[in-house]
Every structure is written in C-alpha cells, then in structure tokens.
C-alpha cells in the first residue's frame, strides 16, 4: 500500500489510528480495538455480533463453542475440571521438555542426571517438583472430572461415546503417570514398576503373559531396555494417544454441548444445544476470561505448593539385588496393590481390573434410567458411593499398614530410620542427635527434656512408643527394650546403632541390631509436608 497518497487523503493522525486499529484487528482475529474496550467494560455486543468472527478466523478458537448456556458456566457445575485436565496435559508437556534437556534414558546415567538436575540446575528441582505434582494432580483431576460426570448423569444419551473416550483418557493418564515413575531410576521407581509390570505376566495363558511382560520390560527383568521403552512410552507414544483421544473427546463435548443441570430440562430431554438468547454466555469475552483466570490461579497454586509443601522424592539408585522394605505403588494404584494382597495375581491383577474397566466404559450403555435427576438415580448414586468407599478401603489395604508387616523389631527400626526415604530421625537430623548411649529402660524422655533436647526428645519418645506398641500388640515380643548408640565415626559422620532386645512367647531372648549412618550435610525430605529451608540459615562459619 502506498503510504503517501493515503496520508495525503486522510491526514497523518487518522491514517495512523486506522493503521493501528487494522493491526489490532488482525492480531485478535476480528475484534477491533473499540469492540475490545466494550468487551472489557462488560457491554453487550452489537448486532450482528462482531465477537463471533474470531471463532471462524482463528484456528485455536474454531474448536471452542461461541456461546454456552448460563447454567453450565457456574463454577459448581463443572468445577472447571475438564479444562484443568487439558491444561495439565500441556503443563506436563512443557515442564517435561525442560526435564528432558538434562535427562538421558540409560540406567548408568539417569540417576546421576537426577542428582545433577537437583544440585546443579537453577530451577531444576522446581521443574521436577512441578512436573511430578502436575502428574499427580492430573490423575486426581481427571478422576474427579469423571466422578462429577457420573454424579450429574452427564454420560447419558447422547453422550455415551464421550464417556467412553473419557475412560480411555483416564487409563492413558494413569499409564502416563506410571511410565514416568520409572525414569528417575531410583529404588522407589524401580520396584514400583517391577511390581506393576509383573501384573501383565499373570495374563493367561502363560505364553501371552510372558510375551506382554517381555515387550514391556525389554528383557525378563527391567534394565536398560526397559528404561528406554518406558521413556519412549512416556514422552512419545502415550502423549500421542492422549492427544488423539483428547480431540475426539473434546469434539464430542462441543458437538453435544455441556449437559445442563438436570433441573434445567425435562427428563429424557437434551436441550444443551438449544440455548435461548436470554441465557447465552458468549465465549468472548466471558468464558475466555473465566477459563484463563482459572488456569492462571491453578498454576499459581501449583507453584505455591511446590515452593513450600511438595518435593518429588528421590531414593537411592535402583538396585535389582535388594528390595527395600515396604515397597509401594504410587498412591493412585494403592487399590490395586490392596486387591493383590487378598487375591491371586491373575484374578486381582488382570481379570478384575479388566472387567472393571469394561464395566466403567459400558456404564452409559447399561444404565437404562433416562433421568439425570439425583432423586431418580438412587441406585446409581448409591452404587457409585459404595464403589468409592470400596476403592478407599482397598487403597488403605494397599499401604504397608495392612498385612505386610515384618517382625516387630524390624518395623520399629523402619519407623525410626526406614531403609529408603526419610523417617523421623533423618528429618530431625545430625545436629540434634548428640553422641551417646540411649537405653529405653531408663526414663529417657525425662533425662532428655524437650526444652533442652527438642529433637532428641522426640526421637526417644517415638522409639519408646513404637517398642511399647509392638510389645502390646505382638505376643511374641515381650519385655522389649531398645538401645540407641550414637557414635562419631568420622568428623562429620555419625553411626546410629539400633539394638532391640525382647523375650518371645517361649521365654527365649531375642535381639536385633541394625546400623545406619547420618552425615552432617545430608538433607532428607518427605514428599508431602512443609519444606525444610534450614539451608537458608547462615552457617556457623558465617555467623
């Protein structure tokens, strides 16, 4: 465009403002600056509605509906769980790419890379914690999204297939989270995944199970090949599947519209797509602002949690020769671990989950009740609640608290200083544990009062408490006492010898001894809980 004749015709100022408006309209895919201002002021659109243009102009907006029914935009109808699930997928992709920069999927390198990431990369721990928390959140939010859909009966016709793809997305989310579990190549990862992949081994007939297992692990046991396979599943294959099914799922959501609250329509009706003009809420600007604000607030929540309350665990490097005591699956598979404790692997690990999955997918096709109102759906709601309670009980049974206990002295020491992870003693730490011999037959808590020895006092109370608990509980563990000996082994290294003596049911004496070391600088942390910012305190030399 020739600039000069334009300016001569309209004058300098007008050509400038018109040019600027033109650029603005191009960027917003059809919204002029004036219209944008009216949007922000909350003024209604003109007719014909100029705010619909971006939906046909812009690729990213063409998949969004132009308006929603007012009743489905209320926060408590959807809790924004769908958009958050989608957002978390992209959130995980971005944080995951940052982690990939410092990661090599090889057993010799992966764990070293994790330590380098934590101790040598600015924001390295932050990214890892965000990725891990995001993954756990994604499992939780996708599940809640499904629970919400179930409780409002939104899976009913015509949305059966939307539900079906949703279940697939749930399964893919679980697999994504689980496949990422192995990548740090620590004991937690290795053994959780060893247990997890041993389940397909139980698929009958034997030859099928073994082949599936071999395909997943790349060898009879997890090793270099298994890690590479899980890595590729995690960063490439499963995201691809998720991406594909997400679009099928979302197309169906837009196609049928978000189901209205049951009270808005007659039983058996579906009026989600027949929104009266008076109840329309347009995507631009209201829903866009709402969704953006929710995503931003959620991101800030994740950052807040990661800054103060959440740390992704990293245990010792994977050791195929030693299974740590109380190996557990990630929390979202506790229920499966619980079932495995009460039934055999083929039934509880393969057949039952398979049947449950098929049932879950088939719910919309099996439920004959046309009504979505809670009053008419007593059976469905009650069975849903019962299923939820059963899941919680099974999950509790999946934790080490249920039927996986070792001998009492082993459990006592495990409570104080677990083989892997932190435990109370390591969290209290080197500085607060003076060298000495602490015998629980003496009145230790009184000898080491809380005011003077806060950390040691807590440790000794716990030590006595655990011994007493097992003394009362186990008839083979009587008159038990413990001796903790703390020795300075090197100038900055203490050895803690845990010794437990008891008398068994037949009157014979037994004893157990276990040593652990504690270094001055080693920090241990729990996955959930307030982070320790002790390292921000000035050190003794600086003071």
């Amino acid at each position, binding site marked *: 465009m020739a600039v000069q004749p334009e300016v001569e015709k309209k004058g300098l100022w007008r050509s400038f403002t018109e040019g600027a408006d033109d650029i603005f309209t191009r960027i917003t895919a059809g919204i002029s600056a004036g219209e944008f201002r009216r949007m922000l002021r909350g003024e209604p659109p003109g007719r014909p509605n100029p705010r619909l243009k971006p939906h046909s102009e812009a690729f990213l907006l063409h998949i969004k509906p132009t308006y929603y029914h007012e009743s489905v935009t209320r926060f408590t109808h959807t809790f924004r769980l769908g958009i958050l699930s989608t957002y978390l997928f992209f959130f995980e992709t971005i944080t995951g790419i940052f982690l990939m920069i410092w990661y090599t999927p090889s057993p010799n390198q992966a764990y070293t890379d994790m330590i380098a990431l934590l101790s040598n990369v600015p924001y390295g721990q932050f990214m890892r914690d965000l990725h891990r928390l995001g993954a756990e959140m994604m499992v939780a939010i996708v599940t809640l999204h499904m629970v919400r859909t179930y409780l409002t009966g939104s899976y009913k016709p015509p949305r059966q297939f939307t539900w079906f793809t949703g279940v697939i997305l749930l399964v893919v989310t679980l697999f994504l989270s689980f496949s990422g579990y192995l990548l740090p190549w620590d004991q937690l990862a290795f053994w959780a995944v060893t247990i997890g992949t041993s389940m397909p081994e139980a698929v009958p007939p034997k030859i099928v199970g073994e082949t599936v297992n071999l395909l997943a692990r790349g060898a009879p046991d997890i090793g270099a090949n298994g890690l590479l396979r899980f890595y590729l599943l995690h960063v490439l294959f499963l995201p691809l599947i998720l991406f594909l099914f997400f679009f099928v799922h979302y197309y169906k959501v837009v196609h049928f519209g978000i189901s209205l609250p049951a009270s808005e329509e007659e039983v058996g009706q579906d009026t989600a797509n027949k929104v009266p003009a008076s109840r329309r809420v347009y995507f631009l600007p209201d829903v866009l602002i709402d969704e953006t604000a929710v995503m931003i607030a959620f991101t800030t929540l994740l950052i807040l949690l990661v800054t103060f309350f959440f740390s992704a665990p990293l245990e010792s490097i994977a*050791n195929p020769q030693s299974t740590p005591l109380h190996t557990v699956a990630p929390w979202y598979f506790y229920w499966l671990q619980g079932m495995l404790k009460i039934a055999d692997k083929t039934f509880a690990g393969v057949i039952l989950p398979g049947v449950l999955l098929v049932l879950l997918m088939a719910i919309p096709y099996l439920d004959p009740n046309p009504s979505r109102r809670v009053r008419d759906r007593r059976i469905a709601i009650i069975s849903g609640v019962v299923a939820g309670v059963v899941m919680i009980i099974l999950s509790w049974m999946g934790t080490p608290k249920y039927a996986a206990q070792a001998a009492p002295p082993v459990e006592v020491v495990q409570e104080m200083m677990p083989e892997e992870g932190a435990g109370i003693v390591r969290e209290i730490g080197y500085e607060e544990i003076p060298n000495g011999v602490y015998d629980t037959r003496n009145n230790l808590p009184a000898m080491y009062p809380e005011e003077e020895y806060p950390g040691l006092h807590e440790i000794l109370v716990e030590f006595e408490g655990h011994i007493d608990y097992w003394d009362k509980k186990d008839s083979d563990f009587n008159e038990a006492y413990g001796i903790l000996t703390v020795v300075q082994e090197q100038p900055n290294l203490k050895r803690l010898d845990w010794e437990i003596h008891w008398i068994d049911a037949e009157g014979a004496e037994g004893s157990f001894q276990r040593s652990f070391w504690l270094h001055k600088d*080693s920090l241990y942390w729990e996955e959930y809980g307030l982070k320790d910012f002790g390292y921000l305190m000035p050190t003794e030399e600086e003071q």
Partner: protein
Amino acid sequence: MRKPWYSIFYIKSPITKIGLGTLAVLAGIALVLFLMATENKRMEAQAASWDGRSIEKGASLFMANCSTCHGLDGKGLPAVAPALNSRYFFSQRIDDVGFSGTLKQYVGGTIHSGRPSKVSTQWVNIMPTWSNQVGGPLREDQIDHLVDFVLNWEEEAMAQTPEEDPWQFFQDALSKQLPYSPDEPGYDEKVQQAIAAAEAAGAVGYEIGGMAVEAPTEGEAGAPAEVRAPEDLFNSLGCVGCHNINADQTDDNKGPIAPNLGNLADHAGSRVEGEDAETYVHQSIVDPGAFVVPGYPNGVMPQNFADQMSEEEIQGLVKWLLSH
C-alpha cells in the same frame, strides 16, 4: 429463589476475574522470584546433601566389606592391610607409588580392580577386585560411595601427629621422605620405626627421612619388655583380619579366608595324629605350612609370627585360643 451457599463461587464480573487473575500472576511471579533469590543456596545444600548421602552409603559398605582387613576405624591391621585413615596415606601415598592422578582416582582404581599380583606381598591377602566389571561384588556407584567415605577421613588423618599416624611401612613404595616436619613430636620415632620395618622387610639401599636403610639386623627387634595379652596379640598382629574368633568352623559356615576359631578347642586335638591340641595350635602359629586345613591354600598365613612374639606370649595365645 434463595441463592445456595456455594453461589459465592459464581463470579460474574469479568473485571473481578481479570483482577484475580492478575493477582495470581503477581503472586506466582513473587514465588518464582523468592526461589530465584534462594536458588544458589538450595543448589549448594543439595550438592552437599548428595555428597553426604554418598558418604553414608559408603560407610555402610565399608563396614560390610572392608573393615575386616582395614579395621573399623580405617587404621589398618598390622600385616593384614594398610591404614587409610592415615596422614601418610592422604599426603604422600600417591607420590610414593608414582600415581599421576588424584588420590580419589587412586582409591577408586584400587577398589575397582584391586591389586592383582602374584608377587608375594607383605600383606596377608591381596586386595581383591571389587567392581562387578572385573569379577567383584560391587557396582560402580557403590565403589563411588566407598571412595567418598574413605576420602572423608582426610580431615581426621591430616590432623594426626607422627605418633598417631597408623601408617605401616610399604615394601612396594619406599618413602624417601616422611610427611611430617622434623619438628613434630614423634618424628624421630616414626623414622626409626619406618627404618626398622624397611629393614625387616629386606629393603636395602633406600633412604627414609634422610637416613639410610641398612642390611637387616638380626634379632634386633628386641624382645618386648612385658608380655602382651593374648587378646591384644590376636588383634594387633592381624590374626583377627582372617580368623573369626566369634564364629564356629562348621561344614555350613566356613571362614572365607581362614578357618573360624570359635570352636577351635573341639577339633584342634584331632587334626594331626599324635599331636594334642596345644601342640597343634602352637605349631600352626610358628610354622603355618606344617598342616593346612583342607580347603584353604598354603602360604597365606604369615610365616614370621615366631619372630614377632616371645615364646611366653605364644604359649599364652595358644591357651587363650583354646579356651575362648
């Protein structure tokens, strides 16, 4: 219609939402800035933490695998294995052997591939290979932990005076200069000890601390003035490194290097025909090759115990072993 309690979540105003969103962005930025300000300290703490954890794991491995020969405190056992928690080791060892890398690499390499040598050495056992790459039981990361643990003795070892240094003379690398200044207390004794050890080892023609090592002087080791207790002898002469006094020698539980001595009294009398228990044990100490328990190689046990103890001490040790 009365509004339900949860209607507080129904924010209609776009301006309120934009305001809340902006606040959230600012809060997020504040948190990220907080992290930025503390990030260097966090990384330092993390690096120190992982080093610390490595030392903790190394300590556990050392106790399980190394302490039987090198001692629980790393100060070595006489004639069994050299001291690691030693000033000489930290300040001079790699120069003596002419190793061009760092001490860390030296320790790592030694643990990794041991000291594979058929040449007879002054030590009871040769250092085995530990890495599973060369037939040992440990993985590379475990060796790294061990190295970290051994090197963590540096502070303690470098504070040792010559008297405290548990250094034992090495035949393979003759120290021409001791790692102490002549002003330090105990320097002269250490030089004398080193020379005596070098002479006993048959090393001639070297200088230690500026003094020449002469031909071995027979019998000059000198009988100790007082009789040492059997238990001390058992520990200080290194028997403890190979013989487990607290375990019985049975078919299911044989000592890995040498027979366990827990139940020595039960079968000492029946090992060699015509020898009672005391004669047998005495002979086994002064002349280990006379009878070797089946299943163990000859020539492992040092032949020079008769020179290191008085007859009275040997008698005491025999009694103590049989009554233990």
